């Protein structure tokens, strides 16, 4: 009899382990069958029958951006006159225990309504190293060079030809100084989305009286995806 009761208890335990919730809710039979079991065993069985509690999900641990290289790809708009599409890539290296300071180089190509601009830029970057959230704001400043080439629409060029007008020059290279900033949002420990805004002044080769008369302002707003190596 004892052996038979033990066998039934083992069977009930196995059923509870395989389908604890279902056994508890759908079929009271096993409990009825072990009505004569001792109190410690019932307590043990009941404890076994409780579904395991899940630990509440915690946010991923926030870590400081590590020093080292960061690679970004970008797409955005240059706002100067009209809106022009810009795409490119950037490579940065950050220094220090909390990576507060870094240097970034980027190359971009801009397709405007009247031509294209190729641009290379270097930036010193200062960022909030002690991250208390997924957001890492930063400021950047630096300089660069660009090459612009005019590509007038065909209809415009035809009329200019008929009037005997040839716009000159059709391409130019000019240095620039720039300032900006942005924020990185880490979706993974090493992967971040990034928004970046830059204000630049291009120093054109003009016969102008004052230095400021040679400056041409540009603004850029870009979205980036960055990967920390």
């Amino acid at each position, binding site marked *: 009899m004892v052996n038979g009761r033990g066998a039934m208890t083992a069977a009930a335990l196995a059923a509870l382990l395989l389908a604890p919730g279902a056994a508890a809710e759908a079929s009271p039979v096993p409990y009825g069958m072990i009505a004569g079991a001792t109190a410690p065993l019932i307590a043990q069985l009941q404890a076994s029958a409780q579904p395991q509690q899940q630990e509440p999900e915690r946010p991923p641990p926030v870590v400081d951006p590590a020093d080292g290289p960061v690679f970004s790809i970008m797409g955005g708009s240059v706002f*100067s006159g009209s809106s022009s599409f810009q795409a490119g890539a950037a490579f940065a290296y950050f220094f220090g225990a909390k990576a507060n300071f870094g240097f970034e180089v980027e190359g971009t190509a801009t397709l405007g309504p009247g*031509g294209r601009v190729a641009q290379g830029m270097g930036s010193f970057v200062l960022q909030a190293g002690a991250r208390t959230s997924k957001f890492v704001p930063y400021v950047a400043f630096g300089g660069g060079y660009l090459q612009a080439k005019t590509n007038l629409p065909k209809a415009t060029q035809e009329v200019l030809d008929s009037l005997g007008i040839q716009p000159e020059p059709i391409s130019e290279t000019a240095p620039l100084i720039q*300032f900006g900033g942005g924020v990185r949002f880490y979706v993974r420990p090493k992967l971040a989305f990034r928004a970046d805004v830059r204000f630049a*002044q291009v120093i054109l080769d003009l016969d102008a009286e004052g230095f400021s008369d040679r400056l041409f*302002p540009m603004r850029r707003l870009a979205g980036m995806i960055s990967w920390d190596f």
Partner: protein
Amino acid sequence: MKRGVLFALGLAVLLQACGQTPTAFRPLPSALGDIRGVAMGFEGLLPLQEGEGIYAAWINLERGEIVGLGRFRVNENGRPIDENGDLIERFVADQNLFKSVSVLITIEPFGAVGGSPGSAVILQGPVIEGVAQLTVPSPQGVQGAQGSYRVFTPTDGPGTNEGSGVWAASVAGGPLLQLPALNNLYAYEHYMVIDGVTLTMGRFLSPNAADFINLYSGSEPAPAFPGEDFLVNAPAGVTFPANLAGARLIVTLEPILDDTSDPSQLVILEATLPGSVVGGETIALTNRVADFPSGTAVIF
């Protein structure tokens, strides 16, 4: 870090405080769509004489703003020139013209160009892909205008000086001119050029009604149609009753406002009276709308 941020903010203020789009053509602004220049050429646009005013060019932007490009004259090749006679190859605006909607050429009759265009529009056209074909904003159907004048002088009674007046009225008392309805820019005006002296016969809005003045007509009733007798108030250089043999008769479009006393260059109908005019002749007019000025403007 704080010092770096302050430095960067200061740099930002400095960077935004200066800089502008150059007036000369440059590849960088052009590539990015910061376009400030306009070139123009014209066909049949006549140089304006002293007292006729001066041409002015305007650009209508997408948001309704109107940008003045400046005033100009035209040379014999139909190219705009400044007051020194130098060619204006590129008008420069102080705003971006990338979103231009139309180009407007006006005649500013008093030689002073204000902040907005006057009413004497001579050419206009929509900007399509940076190019505007400029035409006279004439009333629809003006290409089909036709008609004639009859030589007679009703305002000094019948049978006297019959070769000294012209009226757009038939013997049966009907209209002789077929002109389209006017738009809100122009009125009709007709002139007689006698021995090189241009005399207005008055403005009118419809060929089926009298014109607004009869400066040189007699005291007898005039027909209820456009016309004039050249009998009284003779200006210097002309003798009345006028001998209209060989005189030139023109019907023009004149701006409703800001008009000058001279005939505009928008001649719709024209005729030269025969070498002998005794009265009773019907003078057929030739349509000259094909000679209206035109032009092209390109934004770059």
